[in-house]
């Protein structure tokens, strides 16, 4: 397996493969965040999800998040893999692995990575229910981006 550190895939994600990418002699801690498909959202039962990405830009934005983490926590090494396509309940959608010499930074940086993914990485999910389907995000025009870009406070809650 010679996948890059920042990766979009249509295949199931191996947690171990992502984690291995950040393991190195200087590391004393690896924090792994795993995002999986939830069955119930606001009381509504999801049958399955479909993820779509603007793949080339999504990889660039994942790399950008890696760069931001490098600036904030210079001792961190990060790997992120996001899956797209059809995912069933409990399938793994994203794995973030961060290694650092000491645990504090690994926890902080992995939290930072998932929050930034939800802000800037062009990936969308469509929920399929028994009685319909919908792209999730904010397509009802209730949110406007005055600058044309996502701002910190535009973080979509899940």
């Amino acid at each position, binding site marked *: 397996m010679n996948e890059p550190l920042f990766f979009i895939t249509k295949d199931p994600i191996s947690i171990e493969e992502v984690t291995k990418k950040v393991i190195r002699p200087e590391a004393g801690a690896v924090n792994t965040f795993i995002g999986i498909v939830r069955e119930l959202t606001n009381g509504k039962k999801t049958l399955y999800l479909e993820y779509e990405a603007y793949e080339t830009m*999504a990889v660039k934005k994942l790399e950008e998040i890696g760069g931001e983490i490098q600036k904030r926590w210079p001792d961190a090494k990060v790997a992120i893999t996001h899956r797209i396509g059809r995912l069933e309940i409990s399938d793994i959608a*994203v794995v973030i692995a961060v290694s650092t010499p000491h645990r504090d930074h690994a926890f902080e940086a992995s939290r930072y990575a998932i929050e930034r993914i939800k802000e800037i990485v*062009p990936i*969308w999910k469509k929920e399929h229910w028994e009685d319909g389907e919908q792209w999730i*995000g*904010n397509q009802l025009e209730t949110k*406007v981006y005055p*600058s044309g870009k996502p701002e910190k406070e535009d973080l979509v809650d*899940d």
Partner: protein
Amino acid sequence: MIKILLFAHLQEAIGSREIIWTDVPISVGELRKKVAEKYNLLLQSVMVAVNEEYADDQVELKDGDTVAFIPPVSGG
């Protein structure tokens, strides 16, 4: 000529992943307005990327640029 990429619900609304736009030069804001009118789309709240970088409405587009209309993202 500008290539416009559409994703998620926008792609489904017009039934295509790509639009070719020949009326250049044009600003991002103008393009947003004209595409919304022509294809009857709501584009006020979408972000725009020019050549894979987020760009604001003032950016001037030129021949050969690739523009993407990016609805609020929902990955993770």
